[in-house]
């Protein structure tokens, strides 16, 4: 194992939309207007924040009642150093705050300078954001009660304002991606314009890209093999619509499963330097590499696959993909 296993950052993010439904929507509408609403259960108690269905008897809930804007810290934890995605300027305490008139606590931040200013049972009050949109962050956080704020809402009729029906919930996940040992070797080889696969010791099947494990035998592969950069098209797709994730590809373009000579399975690549309509099952192709001075540790070194002009490969069993290998297993082929 000459080189290190590769690693690279991978960020997945998407601006999801969350439909609120009537109960949570009313709660968020209230926040936008500067009031806090709970929902009354059949036993008369009030849940805030409200739930749509009663945890005890599963009955639907809907009677919204206004609760106070001050309350008591039921429990708390110091949040530690500020984290990048938190909507605060400074470290905060996370607290369960039971608002006056509510029977359940709400999790939110208490904006104090340090844990020494926090205690269970302390009284806190809402600090509202000036610009509110119908989101839980309309509450900046809670501050120790000072008797000044109180409700900002001048008796807004929530039925006469536009109701919140959805919220944007952008999600961003930061991963550290590692392709693992087998794929790392493959990517290093790519830098030298080599394509490697690995062989299953039980069946002789050769997998490209290498996997480290044989899906046929369920065992580690036993041998790394060099493969030529020529093979055939075992099937293909012609994409005729633009794909958001690949703005560089201009439809129509042909993506195909390419089976290299000596490989047991195909892998997907672009067919280039020919009309998509001229691509055929069994068409012989060879890799088109990036110029030598642009080669990287990356599968993107192969720009695509172009026709070789050789006679088409005859695909013996058109239902089956690739080649079953010399020592076939029951599962691998019949």
């Amino acid at each position: 194992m000459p080189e290190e296993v590769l690693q690279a950052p991978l960020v997945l993010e998407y601006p999801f939309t969350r439909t609120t439904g009537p109960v949570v929507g009313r709660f968020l509408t209230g926040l936008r207007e500067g009031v806090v609403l709970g929902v009354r259960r059949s036993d008369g108690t009030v849940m805030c924040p409200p739930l749509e269905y009663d945890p005890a008897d599963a009955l639907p809930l809907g009677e919204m009642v206004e609760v106070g804007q001050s309350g008591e810290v039921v429990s708390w934890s110091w949040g530690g150093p500020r984290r990048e995605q938190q909507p605060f300027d400074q470290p905060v305490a996370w607290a369960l705050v039971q608002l006056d008139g509510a029977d359940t606590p709400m999790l939110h931040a208490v904006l104090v300078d340090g844990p020494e200013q926090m205690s269970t049972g302390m009284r806190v009050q809402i600090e509202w954001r000036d610009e509110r949109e119908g989101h839980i962050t309309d509450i900046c956080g809670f501050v120790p009660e000072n008797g000044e704020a109180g409700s900002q809402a001048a008796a807004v009729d929530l039925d006469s304002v536009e109701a919140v029906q959805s919220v944007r919930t952008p999600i961003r996940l930061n991963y550290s991606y590692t392709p693992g040992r087998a794929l790392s070797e493959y990517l290093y080889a790519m830098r030298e314009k080599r394509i490697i696969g690995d062989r299953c010791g039980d069946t002789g099947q050769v997998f490209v890209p290498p996997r480290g494990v044989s899906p046929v035998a369920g065992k580690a592969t036993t041998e790394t093999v060099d493969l030529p950069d020529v093979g055939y098209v075992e099937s293909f797709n012609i994409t005729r619509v633009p794909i958001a994730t690949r703005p560089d590809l201009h439809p129509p373009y042909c993506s195909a499963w390419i089976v290299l000579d000596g490989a047991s399975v195909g892998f997907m690549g672009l067919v280039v330097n020919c009309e998509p309509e001229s691509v055929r099952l069994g068409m012989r192709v060879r890799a088109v590499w990036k110029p030598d001075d642009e080669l990287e540790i990356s599968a993107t070194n192969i720009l695509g696959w172009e026709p070789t002009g050789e006679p088409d490969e005859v695909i013996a069993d058109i239902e089956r993909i690739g080649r079953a290998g010399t020592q076939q297993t029951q599962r691998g082929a019949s």
Partner: protein
Amino acid sequence: MGKERTAVIGVGQTKYASTRGDVSMAGLLREAAQRALDSAHKTWSDVDAVVMGKAPDFFEGVMMPEIYLAEALGCVGKPIMRVHTAGSVGGSTACVAASMVQSRVHSTVLTIAWEKQSESNAMWALSLPQPFTTSVNAGAGGYFSPIMRRYMAMSDAPELIGCLVAFKDRQHALKNPYAHLHQHDLTFEQVVESPMLWDPIRYSETCPSSDGACAMVLTDEAGGDAHDGPVAWVAGAAMRSESNSYGGRNMVSPAASEQCADDVFAQAGIHDRRAEIDAVEMYVPFSWYEPMWLESLGFAEKGKGWQLVESGATTLDGGDLPVNCSGGVLSSNAIGASGMIRFAEAALQVMGEAGEHQVDGARTAFGHAYGGGAQYFAMWIVSKDK
């Protein structure tokens, strides 16, 4: 002691639509679940356990939604379980729910599957970037079109078979009030002329993107016998999976599909599949999968499935093996729910509750789902007779 006989006594569905902006995810599930309980003449307290399923969390961006949904589904203080097998999940979820009754772990189980696709973009979720490479794949259509192309080459099927399937399923959907697509004015010519997206797949040969949920109430033999209403008895339920790529893999008719079918038909004691099954609900997100699955499931000989389509055998109006009378996945695709809809629609057929899309006199029906790279399979057979 054999398996406990298991009955479907209630089915509930939402109207499938591109956006259900009026309800939360919890509200959407609740709608289907309440309808299932109502048709089963049950209340929330009658349910012993809830088994739910949906497709990947990335499809909506709610991680582990089963936790957030506990109170909406009356699960507080009860067992809750989530199943996940990609697109086949709705079917697998029903199989797991049935196994809980069959094994006598629980007497009455609520099972539910859903997707609220409008909250995200499944195409994005299926095409996540990966370092060190660039993907040329283009969502599910880009993945499955080469497989369909292999089937077309293998079977010498006429080019427009897929269009026949799409048109037929959209016609069926007009008789199902829950179907997402109700294309009253659609003509066969319009299907043929719709643009190619992933050649050979036309726009009209693909499924829509839907919000929706589907639920069922399953109960034991005593519960089924006592139920004051129609019942579908589970005659067989099976699941299989396989690796999605190995040398010699049959992509058109995966081994796991054939094994799963053999198992479920054996459980039900069915020998002549085409003759003994009265209605089929199979997972056909792209039109050509109807003839492909007809062959893989043993309803037609290899290479001849398209002839059933061409002959009209799979139409509700006069066919001897009506397929997807509900309109199928081609007319409603709330991904996680799609498999369970197939299972539930099969149950509705033998219960005689399928309304306008009822197959006259249906006694035995087949429900089917597949997922991933055609590598997860779930199937069940339900019968009017115990």
